[in-house]
């Protein structure tokens, strides 16, 4: 299995951005989510982000909130997330976990890291943990990820100062997650200029790959973002495809089709 860095480099060598797809574990069911994530990979997603369902997702808009609420009502556990990672990583696509901080700390920071490595996971994205709080017990995330070799992805935002961009990028491993706009997850009709400006500002302080998330929902937007970023992250649009589907099978088909459209988009971005 190739690592996250290799996959991002391979995409770069092909002259395109990588496609990163997000879905939460446990929606519509644990196995149903795995089916949908494997469909994303078949459709052309290079990297999978498995969301760990959390009761208070304050970076998420209504679409992801709804799916996550259902996943929690069905009793999805942290161990189910690791099972999901194992089944998805088996496809060969580098698989990351996206998790709010409390479930990680509650599981045990070291124990969580080791369980994720055992499941074949590549790393973790932490939307509400910045490097400021990541270096001391009981949240010694830097120590745990260094010890296990996991990639760790922090976010930068249009509001981040120059100092914070540098500080955050320094602590990222794998890639830097650039939030395209000030806001929460959700599809948007247009990706604004702020994403491109932010990517330019990040590149001025680091050589690490920069992937852009928040708001990308179709092939044209993917192409637009792919023209300046190393990776395009799509979440709510995949979740929407599942929520709108009339059956789990139809959902899986819709996800695969959307992945195909987005994969075309990231290949059109630089042409």
């Amino acid at each position, binding site marked *: 299995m190739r690592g996250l860095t290799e996959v991002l480099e391979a995409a770069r060598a092909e002259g395109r951005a990588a496609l990163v797809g997000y879905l939460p574990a446990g929606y519509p069911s644990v196995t149903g989510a795995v089916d949908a994530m494997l469909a994303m990979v078949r459709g052309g997603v290079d990297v999978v982000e498995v969301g760990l369902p*959390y*009761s*208070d*997702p*304050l*970076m998420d*808009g209504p679409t992801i*909130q709804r799916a996550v*609420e259902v996943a*929690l009502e069905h009793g999805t*556990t*942290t161990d189910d997330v690791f099972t999901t990672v194992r089944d998805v990583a088996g496809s060969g696509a580098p698989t990351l976990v996206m998790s709010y*901080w*409390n*479930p*990680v*700390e*509650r*599981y045990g920071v070291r124990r969580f890291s080791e369980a994720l490595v055992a499941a074949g996971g590549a790393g973790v994205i932490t*939307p*509400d*943990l*910045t490097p*400021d*709080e990541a270096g001391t*017990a*009981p*949240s010694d995330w830097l120590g745990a990820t260094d010890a296990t070799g996991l990639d760790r992805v*922090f*976010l*930068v*935002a*249009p*509001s*981040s*100062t120059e100092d*914070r961009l540098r500080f*955050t990028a320094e602590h990222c491993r794998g890639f830097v997650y650039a*939030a395209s706009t*000030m*806001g*929460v997850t959700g599809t948007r009709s247009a990706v604004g200029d702020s994403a491109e400006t932010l990517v330019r500002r990040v590149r001025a302080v680091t050589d690490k790959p920069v992937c852009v998330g928040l708001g990308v929902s179709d092939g044209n937007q993917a192409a637009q973002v792919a023209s300046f970023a190393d990776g395009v992250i799509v979440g709510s649009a995949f979740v929407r495809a599942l929520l709108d589907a009339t059956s789990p099978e139809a959902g899986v088909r819709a996800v695969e089709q959307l992945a195909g459209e987005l994969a075309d988009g990231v290949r059109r971005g630089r042409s």
Partner: protein
Amino acid sequence: MSAPVRRSPDSGGHFGPYGGRFVPEALMAALDELAAAYEKARLDDAFQTELTGLLTTYAGRPSPITDARRFAEHAGGARVLLKREDLNHTGSHKINNVLGQALLARDMGKTRVIAETGAGQHGVATATAAALLGLECVVYMGEEDTRRQALNVARMRLLGAEVVPVDAGSRTLKDAINEAMRDWVTSVERTHYILGTVTGPHPFPDMVRDFQRIIGDEARQQVLDLTGRLPDAVVACVGGGSNAMGIFTAFLDDTDVRLFGFEAGGEGVDSGRHAARMSGGSPGVLHGTRTYVLQDEMGQTLPSHSVSAGLDYPGVGPQHAWLHDTGRATYAPITDTEAMDAFALLCRTEGIIPAIESAHALSGAAKVGLDLGPDAIVLVNLSGRGDKDVDTAAKWFAVISDEDIVESAVAVVEESPQDASGQGW
């Protein structure tokens, strides 16, 4: 006492292992800006003079202390002194913090303020300050709370605020905070989030405590003037913990003064339906801070329960977590029934209708008085008045049929007039 109590957090806002900042990066710049603006205002004579002026000529400070002699007969004969935050403009201690933050918002050039509210007292205070300073105001309130505190929804709309009922999750204070945070991430450039209690990311726990410490600063001197000595115990209810930190802070160095915080015990800690974070929760991260949280073994927040909307919250301010661990303050639960009994007792013995939140402190004070005996002086923070709770209490005690009172309040809420832009006025 086991360990020294760090009163001022380090530069990252930590109290021992608690506090800090666990927020999306998008908010970090705003929090840094706020911390800097607050640090400047704290030392700025013009700011402090303006705030003190509003607190005296607008909010009605200083609030008096009242010797509750007839109530005291039910508290082991101890002398019970009530710090009358219920007499403040808008009816609770919440106005102290809101006036400070609203001035700060204006000074930072923000034209819009948002707030979360549970009981509605913080929302009313925020709507009030926004009207006073000409700021746009949006208040997020759990749908469940808009129903049980309908009177306050009407007050906020009368004051010109937009009230947004939140129907996500448990539909109470926790979810209102999530929604306010989501708004803030999106609108931070022109919006200040007036958080209503001593929790959330740094600098909120620090700043809100400082704006509320006037309660204890006044009360300490008032008790000395009245009795010639310090109280033996200081008692407050603890939701997020702002009225408690407000009255505790002046006494932290008086190591002979015992501090008691009473949380909502709901239907009993064993029932699982409560908001007793210290006895029924564990350390975790919620709403940007590390503190005691009601959570399951996976780290999912558990729903809280209380007859009192203002105490119905699964987290608590990080400084309380630290005061608990170090033993400087003692925290205990008061059940719904105990609180309502104390509510009735204060009504009948003193002619004061307390907020149900504050009734938790009164019930606790009676226990502390019984424990300490007739020579003791017990200072109680009467954090708010009970007008907003009249329909809940009327139903609880069956003094009136369900519909009579409630319907008139609900009618005001539902039929609030619209202005040209379609917002409630």
